[in-house]
């Protein structure tokens, strides 16, 4: 499902002394089936932006096209429910949204709200649980007696059970240990690849943004500064540093290694393997050069 953002401006608490401009004139396109990361400093408007995609916030000015729906300041709240069915949202620390007595009831909660029959909701709960790699035996347990990582996966299953066409992730790995992080990210890359789910991820982790996404959107002070492929975005080192953003780890390592070895590698490299390869290749070339 394509999401098009046209001249989106959002003002919090307009016409009060607490009025603040959160987004100003944002334009961007999220192609159907793409994996798009949104990066930016804290307070740059990332979360505000994504909350427009499923109608949790309405634009103060401008509009958003989601599939064939248009959201503007005059859209009725009633109409937003249909939108929320198509776009799932995983908030930061999604485990905070658990409330039912059993895991099964909690996962079924979303689908039931959208008038899915109980049997179908239960079937979806099992399927979603499988997607997040949790055993079925967990269904009858209380979500509050699970471990933190399990709770988060149950909460994510609760969103997946809506069977959305697109999913928004707001820092999905915040506060997880390395293995938990990898599991969650693997899950979403798999969903994106296998089901062609449009995925939008807000992240502070430049490695994730660089490695996983087709496109990166850079936000600063409520504006969209850049939208492009990660190779292009992360070659703009100066701009990123001035915004308080890092380069991916592999690129930072290559910069340092390059200084020591008196070399410069221009093309952006994101993964550890590629970085090693780049360095190895330059040694081979050097050696070859010596021989001739």
């Amino acid at each position, binding site marked *: 499902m394509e999401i098009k953002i046209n001249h989106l401006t959002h003002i919090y608490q307009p016409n009060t*002394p607490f009025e603040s401009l959160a987004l100003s004139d944002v334009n961007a396109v999220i192609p159907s089936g793409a994996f798009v990361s949104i990066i930016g400093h804290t307070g740059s408007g990332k979360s505000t932006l994504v909350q427009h995609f499923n109608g*949790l916030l309405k634009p103060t000015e401008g509009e958003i096209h989601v599939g064939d729906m248009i959201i503007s300041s005059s859209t009725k709240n*009633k109409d937003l429910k249909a939108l929320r069915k198509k776009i799932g949202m995983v*908030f930061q620390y999604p485990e*905070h*949204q658990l409330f039912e007595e059993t895991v099964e009831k909690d996962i079924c*909660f979303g689908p039931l*709200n959208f008038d899915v029959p109980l049997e179908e909701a239960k079937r979806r709960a099992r399927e979603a649980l499988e997607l997040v790699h949790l055993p079925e035996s967990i269904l009858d347990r209380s979500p509050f007696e699970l471990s933190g990582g399990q709770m988060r996966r149950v909460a994510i299953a609760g*969103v997946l059970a809506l069977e959305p066409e697109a999913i928004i992730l707001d820092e999905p790995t915040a506060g997880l240990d390395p293995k938990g992080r990898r599991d969650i990210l693997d899950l979403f890359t798999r969903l994106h690849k296998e089901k062609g789910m449009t995925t939008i991820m807000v992240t502070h982790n430049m490695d994730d943004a660089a490695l996983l996404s087709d496109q990166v959107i850079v936000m600063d002070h409520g504006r969209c500064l850049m939208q492009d492929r990660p190779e292009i975005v992360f070659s703009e080192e100066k701009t990123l540093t001035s915004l308080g953003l890092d380069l991916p780890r592999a690129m930072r390592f290559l910069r340092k290694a390059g200084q020591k070895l008196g070399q410069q590698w221009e093309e952006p490299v994101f993964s550890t393997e590629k970085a090693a390869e780049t360095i190895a290749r330059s040694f081979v070339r050097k050696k070859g050069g010596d021989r001739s």
Partner: protein
Amino acid sequence: MKLIIGQFVPGDSIIHRMDPRAKLITVFIFVFIVFLANNPWTYGFLLAFTVLGILVSKVPFSFIYRGLKPVLFIIIFTFILNALFTRQGDVLISAGWFQLTTAGLKQAIFISIRLLAIIVVTTLLTLTTSPIAITDGLETLLKPLKKWRFPVHEFALMMSIALRFIPTLMEETEKIMKAQMARGVDFSSGSLVKRGKAIIPLLVPLFVGAFKRAEDLAMAMEARGYRGDVGRTKFRLLKWHGRDTGLLSVLAVLTAALILMRG
């Protein structure tokens, strides 16, 4: 969402710098002496004291007005009630059973001034004194009650923690509301029963979060050696200045004037 109750507007006026104890005593006594007033002169004094307070505090009138907004309805309501149901003095306007008399109008104006003065002065206290200073002041003022085993320190601590966590809880509420809305909950439409039911997915996580936070806070405090007020020294020492004595003197003069001038 922002709350006006207990909202502190930092500033550097003489009222901001006064000792919270002096301000608390003043507000406490003021609430009582307001009822001494019973004629134009005495009500004039009350108004003058209130307006002077606002001017000296340098808090913009718009802030005071916003603090008044929620209670404005009550004031107008009492005004109308008093105006309509006092049947003494000369009749000003009369239409059917409706009658506005001079005494009624006077009564209505006086009662409204009374309410207004009380609310403005208490608002002024919270606008010019940080919540921490207020609880500090209260704790010192209530200390004598300790003789009768009243847990003064715990009471003050509870108050400051409650104040501190109001914004946090509001933020959390908004977050959970959004998360549940994304799962198809509709908080703003449907029948009353339906809306009541929609509250459960909001309240349960909110309570779970609050209890968890309380536990964390207790642990963090214990880890830093908190044992109640036993042997605890203060970081912010309350100091009584000339201006505080001044405030109480003004209050004494006001009280005397009210007693002397009342009819």
